[in-house]
């Protein structure tokens, strides 16, 4: 295995805190949530594994903590096979054979298309990059079976993507560096100016 410090991008002299921060940053970057239903999930999984292993190795080597690694993020993105009408479709999706899965789904007659069908169709469309129709199908699955956690999780995920939680722009969230007329920064500057009396520094306070 390559140098674990290189994998995390920190120097071997980094403090435990720095190692942890670097690890968290990378784990967030390659987190399975970012790659749910993405055809690149396996590559991200490999990266995640590499990062986890590097972190584990470093923590083990340092032996400074009583308890070893905290395990990191779990990396499981397989579909549960319980109570499914579309076992074959799910296993095709798990195997990454998206086109085959879609073909079977499209062959299902309209009266047999239940909530699970819409969920799986959404999954297939999502991996092809048809994000908008995927969103509609996940929403349809949730409408037909509101109590199902699996469908709900998929819908939440795409809703969050739309709201800009995974990048993009949300008009309702103020951005960093938005300078208003009387925000904290300006007030501090003003306070500082008063103290210094415009360069005079009469009161030796700051």
């Amino acid at each position, binding site marked *: 295995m390559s140098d674990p410090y290189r994998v995390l991008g920190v120097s071997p002299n980094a403090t435990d805190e720095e190692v942890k921060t670097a690890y968290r940053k990378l784990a967030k*970057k*390659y987190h399975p949530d*970012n*790659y749910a239903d*993405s*055809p*690149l999930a396996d*590559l*991200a999984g490999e*990266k995640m594994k590499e990062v986890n292993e590097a972190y584990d190795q470093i923590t083990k080597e340092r032996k400074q903590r009583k308890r070893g690694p905290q395990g990191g993020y779990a990396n499981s993105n397989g579909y549960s096979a319980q109570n499914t009408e579309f076992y074959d479709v799910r296993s095709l999706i798990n195997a990454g054979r998206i086109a085959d899965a879609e073909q079977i789904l499209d062959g299902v007659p309209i009266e047999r298309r239940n909530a699970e069908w819409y969920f799986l169709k959404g999954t297939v*469309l999502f991996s092809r*990059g*048809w*994000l*908008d*129709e995927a*969103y509609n199908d996940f929403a349809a699955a949730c409408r037909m079976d509101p109590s199902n956690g699996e469908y709900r999780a998929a819908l939440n995920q*795409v809703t969050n*993507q*739309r*709201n*800009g*939680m*995974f*990048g*993009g*722009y*949300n*008009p309702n969230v103020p951005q960093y560096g938005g300078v208003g007329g009387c925000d904290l920064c300006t007030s501090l500057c003003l306070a500082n100016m008063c103290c210094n009396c415009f360069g005079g520094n009469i009161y030796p306070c700051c």
Partner: protein
Amino acid sequence: MFGYVKPQKSELLVREFEEYNGIYCSLCKSLGKEYGMAARLALNYDCTFYALVLISASTKPFPSFQKGKCVVNPLKRCLFCKENGMEFRQASALTVILLYHKLIDDIHDSKTIKRFLHILVLPIVRHAYRKAADDYPQMGQIVSEAMKEQRKVEKSESPSLDRCAEPTAHMLEQIMELSSGEELSSPRSRVLNRFGYYLGRWVYFIDAADDLQDDLKKGTFNPLTVRFRLNVTSKWDKIREAKTFANEILNQTLSQLDAASNLMETNLLGPIVRNVVFLGLPQMQKELLFKREKTNV
């Protein structure tokens, strides 16, 4: 269709800013060398980004820069890449090919004087286009296929948004994949493939949202007018609703683009690519979809 993919300059390091300009100037120079002085006018940010991605993701050593004279402004000294590499020649070809198709498209859409002007420049552009398509036949074919496909989709009965975006997305997907120069199953090629797809999709939707009002006035095709059943008489809040929706689609597309670019192995130019994807594109959404409306009201 051009000018949406830019970095957020305020967040670049000075070194990165200079390198970005260096790539911009090198592409300009390469355009001039390959396709004649006039081709330099076609220089744009999007194809600069294309060259940037190719260079940053390539396994070759980091390019070295040197100072040289700017052709357009003799008083200015710019940075140039020392060699006119593969990447710049590919990006120049892409610029010319896209320009040609855009011109053809404009001739189809526009009327009267504008159309006449477009027809006037067509022979010059066509000449350059033929050379580019000769040098990079696959690239020429990918783009013309995409344009054909796009026209077909636009003529169909109320196409879905995803279908409308597919030709552009697929076009960039193939172009990126082609330029990786590796087997299609290799990780690098796969990441570039998805990167291209979502970038193309993003560009298509930002273009659609940006042109919405123009298209309404002229009555030309726009996927958002189809989806929201808009027409010239539509009220402002209906248009705003469509734009907010477009923003959501763009965000969702960016979530996937971000994911792909996280997996890209890059050299020292990588941070510029990340700046464009993580800051520049959201900034563009903000400016085009939310700022302009305030001044328009």
